[in-house]
């Protein structure tokens, strides 16, 4: 009973904390925007070079119907890619963890694979798979799976040794040790990986759209760039940031929901 009682209480506390500490960064952003607006007016900076914040806002509001479908398309793409990429990442982490020899063989390759900038693979993927959804999902999967896989693998391995001894001495099977101890123990680490992947998925989606697509924020950006509509580029940047932030917050909410008994402990330290 009392535990259920503390959960909404602590969420409320966190909200209060955000309001209490959040006004400082908000103030900084507002001041920066004012500085930007006034300097564009004062020095008469041409709009194709650097549009003022108000111009950007106006463009964003007035042509909403022109780019809304781009936004929807990119959001869908990011979410789908994120789900596929992180699922594969988690699955690979679990398999490698349960098979230590295979892990020893593949872990260095896993790290190495991340030193290949995805963008250089993109032309290849497009040659092989064309301009459809498939190469785009491929790119997003590639950028998403790694943070989750590595975070989960490290999380599994850093399981408290004494708890593991307890489990083994109590006669737990390898699978029981994994499912009852190592996996829940690694959840906070997995969520750190998910947060990184969430941002990467939006980035991956936009990059893949730059390389060739018929809709999406990436396409909208390329069009805006070629017609020197700098204001539209900024609108696109704004929405990319918003999308990242939204994904990030969703993961945090999910994390609060999934990780029990530790939230308050960590908040204290």
């Amino acid at each position, binding site marked *: 009973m009392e*535990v259920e009682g503390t959960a909404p209480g602590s969420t409320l506390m966190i909200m209060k904390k955000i309001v209490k500490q959040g006004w400082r960064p908000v103030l900084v952003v507002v001041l920066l925007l004012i500085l930007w607006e006034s300097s564009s007016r004062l020095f008469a900076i041409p709009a194709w070079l650097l549009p003022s914040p108000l111009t950007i806002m106006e463009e964003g509001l007035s042509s909403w119907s022109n780019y809304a479908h781009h936004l929807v398309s990119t959001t869908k793409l990011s979410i789908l890619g994120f789900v596929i990429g992180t699922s594969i990442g988690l699955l690979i982490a679990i398999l490698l963890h349960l098979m230590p020899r295979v892990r020893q063989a593949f872990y260095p390759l896993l790290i190495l694979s991340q030193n290949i900038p995805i963008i250089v693979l993109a032309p290849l993927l497009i040659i092989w798979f064309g301009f459809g959804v498939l190469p785009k999902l491929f790119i997003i999967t590639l950028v998403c799976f790694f943070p989750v896989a590595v975070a989960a693998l490290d999380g599994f391995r850093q399981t408290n040794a004494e708890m593991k001894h*307890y489990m083994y*001495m*109590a006669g737990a099977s390898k699978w029981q040790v994994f499912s009852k101890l190592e996996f829940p123990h690694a959840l906070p680490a997995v969520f750190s990986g998910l947060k990184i992947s969430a941002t990467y998925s939006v980035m991956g989606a936009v990059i893949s759209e730059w390389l060739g697509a018929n809709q999406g924020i990436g396409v909208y950006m390329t069009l805006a760039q070629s017609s020197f509509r700098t204001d539209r580029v900024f609108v696109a940047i704004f929405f990319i940031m918003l999308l990242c932030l939204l994904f990030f917050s969703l993961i945090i909410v999910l994390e609060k929901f999934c990780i029990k*008994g530790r939230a308050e402990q960590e908040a204290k330290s």
Partner: protein
Amino acid sequence: MSELKVSEVSKSFGEKKVLQSVSFSVKEGEFVSLLGPSGSGKSTLFHLIGGLFTPDEGDLCLGGENINGKRGRISYTPQNPSLFPWRTVLDNVVLGEELHAKPNKERARTMLERAGLAEYVNAYPHQLSGGMRQRAAFVRSLLSPQPFICLDEPFSALDEFTRLDMQKWLLSIWEENRKSVLFVTHNIEEAIFLSDRVLVLSSNPATVKQEFTIPFERPRREELVLTEEFLKWKKQIYHELRGEE
């Protein structure tokens, strides 16, 4: 059924010899304490009995069966309570049972009530005090299906007052079902107060130096620790522990 026989067990970690020909036994329903200084290899001995490692030499037998390297034969309370932070107290104490069968939560609730943890059944471990966590860990051992219990310095992190309360509580619970207990401690009074027999370990490497059979009848009362007789035992064991240094 649950008689433990440790015969001539030795164990080294690399160059360092930790246990040297350790021999002793714990009879059915007996409460035996192992008394030894920190770092003498008491936890290592438990890890051997629990099958986490195999001994270099010697045999461990439980109920007539050789259990060298066999896991899941004893119920164990580690030096740290090692409760899982994401499980409620109730889900924690049924863990040992859950590994082998469907846990009986009603029985667990009753035991938690007996342990004075009724209000904390659905709390998480970080909401408990040190003593409560140790009690929960001990309830977890009691609920485990194995008839032989190993307790590794369960009270060493507690203050003097809590410690005495916990000892009395432990005895009262133990008198009810009398599972065989092997209890590790570095506290002389604790060993005498709780046990039928006290085994004194030497260190570097550890062997059983001396064995004392404690004659006090049960149930034991707190006042016992202030009697002449108790002090006499304490002195004797103290000299045995300190004697050769």
